């Protein structure tokens, strides 16, 4: 059953990010695939999410877990065939689930035929599809993103005897978007998948498309020309698709990526995410309030994507040095957990497996402005393995049950793409979907309920945000409002019981009704409204005139 498209559906959607490689393996080769994923669509529908975001599934040498693409027009054989993908897409749509895939625009694998051709000779027609230089001092001073592995943004090509530009791994040469042919081809890639039925793309690494001497080579004006071109093509040919930008920048620097509603529909709010963790540890709302008050207004048709964790390290690029040191000291005392100015841990281990804190953080995720994005496995509190190398520790196989390979695959455990988490705390015997489906008060069932309550009101997805400023700085309180509907959200960021007096004079006469249990609270009067909250507890109150 397909539902008619809803304009701006992405503003109301709850997104779920997953890695096909580690979600479900149907042919027991140790690697997840589309057929396996298709068998789990009911689970995802029942979770309550609306849109699946798939990590790259293109043919790739997998030196960057698929973000090094060798063919934009195919599916990696390990994940299945194009037919498998189409079948998955149809099945997802039949369940009301949308699907967005990755679009890695900035670079390809050095194994991609385009690069193989480009490097074969300086006269090759594809030469200008990449960025070349005789020396490695061009664009001097541009920051290196993968600090732990790359000493330079230039790599020497022994074949054509020139340097090529790469903002990420050296095996991922940057495409040259000053070349119109590159732009056209990237549109062709998009159209190919859109014609097949995908609902949009998460566009990787957008700030880095263009290079200019004497600049940071990030967020340049010409980049927006490229993006407007692609968006223009998209709007010309399709309706109700979404482009989600990965631009790890300060909010005011992300704002241009929305354009005037003619670039990206959505963009991740990267700076908010570490500040949620900071606020929790500090027991102080300041980091969250400051970054959101600094966040600019975006066009009406646009939306922020907010998240707690994803497939990458918990990035600490968009924080001050003081904040970074604090986060490392508080959340990554083991230096092995640190990678590339970030922390490669999952949500539950970051929060010491504390159910109350996990709930609070998810409550914030679901009630702050933006469309929430859940990283697969966080809904059951999966753990991680920081010793797996790169960021693979947060991409381990989904834990479906306590049996063979957690129900992920029938293969020999040694054959799995990444090893299962098997310790006594987060191991699949202890943390898995089947066990939590049997337990009424499991985290999984709680998450289902949380998503249901969030979706019961569009105030969370589209409403305004007004912070309250109670004297108790350990309480983060705000009002979300839309078309006359108002919801009061109160969060205790502290591990101790807190009392808070809220100035709700402007809402005098309204009755707060708690949204999970529907308990009626005393009517708001002229005096400060006193609430007490247990450790890490939160309230969502629908404010009604009774």
């Amino acid at each position, binding site marked *: 059953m397909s539902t008619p498209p809803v304009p701006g559906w992405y503003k109301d959607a709850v997104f779920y990010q997953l890695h096909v490689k580690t979600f479900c393996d149907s042919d027991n080769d140790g690697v997840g695939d589309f057929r396996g994923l298709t068998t789990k669509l009911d689970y995802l529908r029942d979770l309550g999410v609306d849109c699946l975001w798939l990590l790259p599934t293109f043919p790739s040498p997998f030196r960057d877990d698929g973000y090094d693409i060798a063919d934009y027009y195919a599916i990696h054989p390990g994940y299945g065939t194009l037919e498998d993908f189409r079948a998955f897409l149809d099945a997802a749509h039949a369940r009301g689930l949308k699907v967005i895939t990755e679009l890695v625009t900035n670079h390809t694998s050095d194994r991609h035929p385009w690069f193989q051709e480009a490097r074969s000779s300086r006269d090759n027609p594809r030469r200008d599809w990449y960025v070349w230089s005789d020396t490695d001092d061009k664009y001097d001073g541009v920051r290196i993103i993968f600090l732990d592995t790359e000493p330079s943004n230039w790599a020497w090509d022994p074949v054509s005897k020139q340097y090529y530009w790469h903002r990420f791994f050296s095996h991922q040469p940057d495409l040259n978007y000053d070349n119109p042919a590159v732009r056209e081809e990237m549109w062709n890639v998009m159209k190919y998948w859109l014609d097949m039925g995908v609902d949009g793309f998460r566009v990787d690494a957008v700030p880095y498309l263009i290079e200019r001497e004497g600049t940071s080579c990030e967020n340049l004006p010409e980049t927006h020309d490229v993006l407007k071109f692609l968006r223009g093509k998209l709007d010309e040919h399709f309706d109700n698709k979404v482009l989600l930008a990965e631009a790890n920048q300060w909010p005011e620097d992300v704002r241009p990526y929305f354009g005037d509603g003619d670039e990206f529909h959505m963009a991740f709010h990267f700076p908010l995410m570490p500040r949620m963790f900071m606020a929790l540890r500090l027991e*102080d*709302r*300041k980091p969250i309030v400051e970054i959101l008050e600094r966040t600019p207004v975006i066009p009406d048709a646009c939306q922020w994507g907010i998240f707690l964790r994803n497939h990458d390290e918990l990035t600490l690029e968009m924080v001050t040095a*003081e904040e970074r040191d604090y986060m490392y000291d508080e959340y990554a005392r083991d230096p092995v957990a640190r990678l590339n100015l970030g922390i490669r841990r999952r949500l539950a281990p970051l929060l010491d497996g504390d159910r109350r804190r996990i709930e609070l953080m998810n409550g914030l995720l679901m009630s702050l402005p933006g469309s929430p994005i859940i990283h697969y496995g966080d809904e059951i509190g999966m753990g991680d393995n920081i010793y797996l190398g790169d960021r693979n520790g947060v991409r381990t196989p989904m834990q479906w049950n306590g049996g063979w390979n957690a129900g992920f695959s029938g293969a020999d455990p040694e054959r799995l793409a990444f090893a299962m988490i098997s310790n006594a705390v987060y191991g699949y015997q202890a943390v898995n979907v089947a066990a939590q489906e049997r337990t009424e008060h499991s985290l999984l069932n709680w998450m289902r309920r949380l998503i249901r309550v969030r979706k019961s009101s569009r105030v969370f997805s589209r409403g305004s945000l007004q912070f309250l400023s*109670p*004297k108790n700085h350990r309480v983060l309180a705000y009002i979300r409002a839309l078309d006359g509907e108002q919801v009061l959200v109160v969060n205790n960021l502290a591990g101790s019981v807190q009392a808070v007096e809220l100035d709700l004079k402007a809402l005098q006469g309204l009755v707060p009704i708690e949204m999970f249990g529907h308990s009626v609270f005393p009517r708001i009067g002229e005096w400060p409204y006193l609430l007490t909250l247990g450790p890490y507890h939160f309230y969502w109150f629908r404010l009604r005139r009774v």
Partner: protein
Amino acid sequence: MAEPSLIPDDLLRQIIGVGQVDLLIGLTTYQHATTAGDVAAAVRACWRTHFPRLRTALLNVDGGSSDGTPLVVQHAWDDGTRTAGVPSGLRTTHCITSVVPEITDPGRGTRVLLAAGDLLQAGTIVVLDADALLAPGGIAALAAGVRDHGADLVAPVYTRPAGDGLLVTQLVRPLVRAAFARRLQEPLLPEFACSGRLAAQCTQAAWTANAAERGTHFWIAAQALSGAFALHQCALGPRNVVAGRARQSLQELFGLVVGSVFAGLDAHSDAWLGRSGSEPIAGSTAGPDEGPQAEPPSDGSRLLQSFAQDVANLTEILRTILGPDTLAGLLAASAEPGSAEFPDPLWAATLADFLTAYHRAVMRRTHIAQALLPLYMARSGAFLLAHRGSTAGAVEEADETLGACLEELKPRIVERWAQPA
């Protein structure tokens, strides 16, 4: 009759809002608009530089200033948070102001600070002097004594020019050394740091302490010296007292200091009567100020001018207070016209006898303190004349000699202590 609560409602509400702190920095003020802003700015700089991750609050207890002191403090604090281009720090900062009328002296205001610190569960409390400007590093050093060295009381040590602070060096310090057997350089604690544990003790004990005892900060030092509390001293360099502020007269100040010291020693005698000798206190000492010495503020000879007349006028009173040998020595010292000698043993005996007389309440206690003033002035005059041109090191040695003298009289103090009035 129950004493009214130390914490007024508005302060209590602010404390509830702040919750817990790791470091509370307290400041009592009364008509301090010219200095309090600089103190608040120094506190803020200390926090940002030395303790950026700590939960910190500045608490200003004001006695009802008419010159806008609380607003000056608040503005200086807020300006620090809003400096353009400067990161504002990880945490919400707190500047709590409470106006408690009638609190115009530091001792009473400090009671409020310590009680607030107790409610805030502050691990470390630093109490500053609004009349002096302590650098951010100095504030941090005081706090570090508690946080890093585990001290319950961190007392300052100043680099004093020769002849400075005679009330402390000639009277308070040697008395405290002899009584408590600890060499505390600044027992009056112009500024100090204490642990939450000591603050809790002081908050409870202060309910029973009498008003005379609470006139200065000595009662806090006495609490620490009497109980199982760890003491630490911290060198802060020269004391930077702001000039131009109205000061108490010597008579008022003397009465306040001597009254609080005598009352404190009396109240805690159970703790020190059995002690003998003296031990140094851990921490850094300032060392003598070997720089060029400024002229002492007072002329020693002028202080001695009325020595003979004062002794003659007070003879009958002194006969009640002093032992016969002490009185005889005093009469002999004052008999020589223009005499400039007041030897250490005589002064030490005088202090010892006055202390025991205070304990035994041989007369009204305020009169006892008043009677000591002219003798103190004579001793100060003699000391200044004897050490005119001396180096600070020589003066420090002289202070040490006086302290040792009074230590040797401890048995005399103990014996006279038990005598009936």
